[in-house]
């Protein structure tokens, strides 16, 4: 089954790495949307049919946590997986409480991503 995926990261290189790793993890991707911060990501989920979001946390303009809260407030229900450098227990707990379903710590491998995707049933 193919999916439309939104990748949110202020680093264009990291967005490419995430995409490349998704393919290595065996995820069939139909359409890829990219956003450089949470505000751009909100626009995308409001306009496009997105089935999965992979989002960074620390970004200019709007960070990943605020994006998740606002997206959930707009009843965006697709799985959101955080992909971030910060992996402390507090950070992971905050993320899960804010409405994300998975958490991947950078640097990550295809297996790390696969495990997070399995956690959201993909």
């Amino acid at each position, binding site marked *: 089954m193919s999916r439309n995926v939104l990748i949110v990261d*202020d*680093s*264009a*290189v*990291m967005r*490419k*790495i995430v995409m*490349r790793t998704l393919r290595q993890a065996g995820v069939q991707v139909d359409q890829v949307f990219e956003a450089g911060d949470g505000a751009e990501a909100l626009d995308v989920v409001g306009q496009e049919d997105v089935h999965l979001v992979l989002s960074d946390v*620390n*970004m*200019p303009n709007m960070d990943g946590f605020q994006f998740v809260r606002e997206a959930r407030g707009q009843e965006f229900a697709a799985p959101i997986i955080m992909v*971030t*450098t*910060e*992996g*402390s*227990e*507090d*950070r992971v707990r905050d993320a899960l409480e804010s409405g994300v379903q998975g958490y991947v*710590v*950078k*640097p*990550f*491998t295809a297996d790390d991503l696969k495990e997070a995707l399995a956690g959201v049933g993909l």
Partner: protein
Amino acid sequence: MDEVSNEQVVIQLVDSVMEVFGIMLGLDVQAGEAHVAGDGPHSSGVKGAIGLTGDLPGVIALNMSRSDAATAVEVLLGTPAAEVANTEIMDTVGEMTNMIAGGLKTRLSDRPGVSIEISLPTILIGESYEFDAAGTASSLVIPVLGAGDSTYVELFASADSDRAARIESGCQPAVAGKEKP
């Protein structure tokens, strides 16, 4: 707060550097001899810098030559190093610095009472530049062996913290003794 010693910071920083270079670039890097930065020549190449606040105030920087950074982009994206643009090089070094700082934060923040926040990265590229991390007093340089001739990380300690004085008074090279047997 549970005081974090310079030795603990350096050990965790080296661990984070090894993880980032290992997973991202497939390089088995090791830490060289840590030393206090002197008044050496100006920097050149690419530098990613991230500010730290909280219980470890200062700056962490990753330095690479342009050619080594271009090779890193080639490994990560498949673009031939000779064709890599400066924007991709700066983005890559910034993201690697971010991962190193985030890894250090994660490792230290799991200690009771320790709180560290990190900024977004700032990236410099050029033939000869001087880097002044405002508000910092001294820096510890840790060469990254196995990732090019001029790859190293720097830990700048805030002038307001005791850590700067401890670095200046002689943080022994052995603190970075994470070399594999």
